């Protein structure tokens, strides 16, 4: 303690606010500590409760996976649950048996959690023998040389940060040696009532120092600084003694809440203010609680996993408060009962200190690796919440230098964007503001709520943004496809025109006037029908150019081009022999058959006929018409007249296209999304497996859609036909 501190100490007797000059961070409060309640008592011998409740999740991250069965006999230190998945990512730690006994259940139980969560726990019934597996972690006593070696031991031992948050210790360490230049030891213990770290330092200073030294050695850290609040003189003395011949520096720090906060103590010990957007590890600092270091020492040199910890059982409602090396999993209630409650414990116990602890939902919750205190303070009536008078007391005590009264104002008004702008996420929820508020406003509660609201808002914004991006992408894709299709259409149109001109020349010699006559008759009928139906609105859009028709046109072109070549080579065709008449009939039959396959009857040939004059339409088929289709249109094109020839070709092509489409449909049972389907169907992403029924239904829908298209074409045709006939 230097001269300045002495002056401050004397001065603070006549001017209490002078205490604030003794430390570097802003704000802080000086609550009634009540530490002597438990600190004055010797550490009690370990209590073996009737049952131990070992939650699979005791820290941030994922729960562990049990590897024991109900009924198994286990020994102390035996592995009960191993980390799930990749422990580096899952932040999962193993759980070991704190004593020997029988697993009597693996079931849900209420956890010591602010929200009263339930979680799967291994219930162990101790046999009282306390038989242990020595060196359960199978260490050889050698000190780890690299961070990775240390981390593997830490992972096996199930050590988490025992100061509060419970971040798995292995996950906190960097993999590379030398990234940490200073190891900080947190012995501040600033919360009122809690004395477990104080007593740990008094009784196990050697282990703490050894743990710190081996950790610093493995990490390649150059300095080790330990900060202890001035209100623990015995601990300071013990630690100084243990650290005497080592490089560990023991620093006394002012007694102020929240001195034990990581960023506050870091500033106090090193003068470094951790930037808001980085962790201490990023700036070469690592802080560990004294209890964690003891556990590290025990794991590395003795091979003991973390199965017990020093816990303060204190509070104004207890006759005989104490500290004890408590087995993880011991129910709170059995500890509180051991401390002789003054009145029946009909009020909830608090895990942690009065400033940052939380009331447990049930007093039967188990001690966790992060439980430093079981507090039994009878509930005191508090003053009614008054309006904020903007006195600024909260601001004066905020260790993060926030503006609590303004954050409260905006939280209350649900203006969460402004709350966020006031850096609510830098709030460490230490409770100083609520502690001093003369209006008794539960400020921290408001900030917790604001934080969760802001997180929800951001999640929603993100989802909306994603949906917007997707939508824009979809629009862009549709636009692109439309343009591509138009380009192709244009190209095909030219091609078809040319091809048509060719076929006119080449296929004139073919006879079969009857077919032409039949076609003409069919067309007339179609025209008639078209006139009847002409007024019906067409459902399909222009851009959803019926693919069947496109294909048909393509087929027609192909057929026309190939007509000469293939006229003679239609051996495979069913109706290769016979005259044109019979061929035509066969084609008609075929068409009829196809038609019959449709779910709803419709005079499609007629429609197709009606469609034939739609020269303005062109196509962009992606599939070759089937051989059958080609053969079919051959039968007709070869006998058509100039007028009906094209017509016939197209009809056949459409037939072919339909056949192809049907085939495709059958083959693609899962997906029905393709570019050659109408656009209305495109977004209709049918990803899940379809059974027979839905397949049928789809076919029916397909047919119906085609019919609709044809009807539209028919309508378009009506005018043309009237002109033609």
């Amino acid at each position: 303690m230097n001269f300045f501190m002495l002056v401050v100490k004397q001065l603070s007797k006549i001017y209490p606010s002078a205490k604030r000059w003794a430390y570097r961070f802003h704000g802080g409060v000086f609550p009634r500590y009540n530490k002597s309640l438990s600190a004055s008592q010797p550490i009690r011998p370990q209590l073996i409760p009737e049952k131990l409740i070992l939650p699979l999740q005791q820290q941030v991250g994922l729960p562990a996976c049990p590897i024991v069965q109900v009924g198994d006999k286990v020994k102390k230190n035996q592995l009960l649950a191993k980390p799930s998945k990749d422990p580096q990512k899952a932040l999962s730690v193993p759980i070991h048996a704190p004593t020997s006994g029988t697993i009597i259940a693996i079931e849900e139980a209420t956890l010591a959690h602010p929200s009263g969560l339930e979680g799967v726990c291994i219930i162990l019934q101790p046999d009282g023998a306390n038989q242990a597996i020595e060196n359960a972690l199978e260490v050889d006593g050698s000190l780890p040389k690299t961070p990775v070696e240390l981390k593997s031991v830490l992972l096996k031992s199930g050590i988490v940060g025992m100061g509060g948050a419970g971040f798995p210790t292995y996950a906190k360490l960097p993999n590379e040696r030398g990234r940490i230049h200073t190891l900080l030891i947190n012995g501040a213990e600033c919360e009122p009532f809690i004395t477990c770290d104080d007593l740990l330092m008094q009784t196990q200073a050697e282990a703490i120092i050894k743990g710190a030294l081996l950790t610093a050695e493995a990490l390649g850290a150059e300095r080790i600084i330990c900060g202890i609040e001035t209100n623990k003189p015995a601990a300071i003395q013990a630690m100084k003694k243990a650290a005497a011949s080592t490089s560990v520096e023991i620093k006394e720090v002012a007694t102020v809440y929240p001195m034990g906060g990581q960023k506050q103590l870091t500033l106090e010990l090193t003068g470094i203010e951790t930037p808001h957007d980085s962790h201490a590890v990023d700036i070469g600092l690592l802080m560990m609680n004294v209890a964690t270091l003891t556990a590290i020492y025990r794991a590395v040199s003795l091979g003991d996993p973390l199965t017990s910890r020093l816990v303060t059982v204190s509070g104004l409602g207890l006759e005989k408060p104490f500290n004890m090396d408590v087995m993880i999993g011991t129910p709170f209630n059995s500890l509180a009962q051991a401390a002789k409650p003054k009145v029946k414990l009909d009020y909830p116990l608090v895990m942690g200190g009065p400033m940052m602890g939380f009331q447990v939902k049930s007093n039967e919750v188990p001690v966790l690796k992060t439980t430093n205190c079981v507090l039994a303070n009878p509930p005191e009536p508090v003053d009614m919440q008054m309006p904020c008078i903007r006195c600024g007391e909260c601001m004066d005590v905020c260790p993060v230098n926030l503006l609590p009264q303004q954050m409260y104002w905006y939280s209350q008004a649900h203006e969460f964007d402004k709350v966020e702008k006031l850096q609510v996420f830098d709030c460490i929820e230490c409770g100083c503001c609520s502690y001093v508020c003369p209006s008794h406003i539960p400020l921290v509660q408001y900030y917790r709520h604001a934080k969760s609201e802001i997180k929800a808002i951001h999640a929603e914004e993100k989802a909306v943004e994603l949906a917007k991006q997707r939508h824009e992408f979809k629009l862009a894709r549709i636009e692109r496809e439309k343009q591509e299709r138009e380009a192709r259409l244009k190209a095909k149109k030219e091609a078809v025109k040319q091809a048509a001109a060719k076929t006119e020349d080449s296929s004139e010699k073919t006879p079969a006037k009857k077919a032409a006559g039949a076609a003409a008759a069919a067309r007339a009928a179609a025209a008639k029908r078209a006139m009847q139906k002409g007024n019906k609105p067409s459902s399909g859009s222009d851009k959803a150019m019926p693919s069947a028709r496109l294909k048909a046109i393509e087929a027609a072109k192909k057929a026309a081009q190939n007509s000469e070549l293939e006229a003679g080579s239609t051996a495979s065709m069913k109706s290769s022999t016979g005259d044109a008449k019979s061929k035509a009939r066969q084609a008609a039959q075929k068409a009829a058959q196809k038609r019959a396959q449709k779910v709803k009857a419709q005079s499609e040939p007629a429609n197709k006929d009606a469609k034939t004059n739609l020269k303005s339409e062109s196509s962009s088929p992606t599939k070759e018409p089937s051989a059958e289709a080609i053969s079919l249109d051959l039968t007709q094109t070869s006998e058509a007249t100039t007028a009906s020839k094209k017509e016939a070709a197209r009809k056949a092509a459409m037939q072919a296209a339909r056949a192809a489409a049907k085939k495709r449909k059958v083959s693609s049972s899962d997906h029905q999304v393709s570019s050659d389907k109408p656009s209305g169907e495109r977004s209709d992403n049918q990803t899940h497996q379809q059974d027979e029924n839905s397949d049928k239904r789809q076919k029916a829908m397909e047919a119906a859609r085609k019919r609709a298209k044809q009807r539209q074409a028919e309508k378009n045709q009506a005018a043309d036909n009237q002109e033609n006939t």
Partner: protein
Amino acid sequence: MSQSILSSSPYTHNNQSVRKVMLQVQIAALPALIAHIYLFGFGIAIQWMLAVATALVVEYVMLKLRGRPVLPFISDMSALITITGLVFCIPPEAPWWVIVTGSAFALTFGKHLYGGLGYNPFNPAMLGYAFLLISFPVQMTQWALPIEYTGEALNLLQSAQVIFTGQIPGLSMDMYTGATPLNEVRNGLSQGLSVQDTLNNSALSSLWGLSSWGWINVAFLLGGVWMIYSGVISWQYPVGFLGSLAAISLLFNQIDPATYPPVDFVLLTGGTMLAAFFIITDPVTASTTPRGKLIYACGIGILVYVIRNWGAFPDGIAFAILLMNIAVPLIDQYTQPRVFGHNR
């Protein structure tokens, strides 16, 4: 008072409350109250009791009208601080209806119509004072003469007679009322007298080296220092206000001593110390950030000087404070402190 159980941490409290804060302020005002009674007679005590009675009635009626629980809010003592501030501003022998209307206006229009404690943008005491200054200028300038002029302050009966009947049998008004030093200087200047001449004339009647008004200010200073010591008010308010007022008056006094009064006169007359420790420190209407408090207080100091010397009123405290009250949200916006771990 209704009570509840804390449902989330922290589960402990430093036992401070709004009522305690307000009571501390009230206690800090006691030295000035006692000095006032000694120097100016019992007028202020009667005024204060009238104001308390008015406040109780107004608070009760307004809380009822607003549908709020009466007991917790009427006992928060904030109304007491408001009327105490107001009582010190009005002449001790002013007619009874002045303080009654003033208190009623201050509490109703200054506080309750804005939503009650914590929601008022303007300092209620100063709003009431400004209302009285504008509405009853004659009554507001008839100050009781201190004992150095009269030799003996009015007794309780005489004060009551003046306040309730407007006269004391056998005494003329001029025998016990007169202008305040600030008014005298002002009048003197308008008559062509220099500041020094005016002050020298009245310096004859000083009491242990200071005028009575000076002693009242000293009493406020004492109470104020105690409040800073016990952490009830922030040091920024008085330091900013008195500092800027002293600096600007020193500057102008150096330039022209005949027109601009000296620093000690500026700091120890009128409501300077009252404002510095009891009025501008009202947290509801003041800036809350540390730098904001300084800026707010400096702004008031400068405005007070401007109004006193170049404005239409002899003491500009009410208007200076009300003007700076308007600026508070803006000041707060731009004076947010650097948050831990952030660069600014």
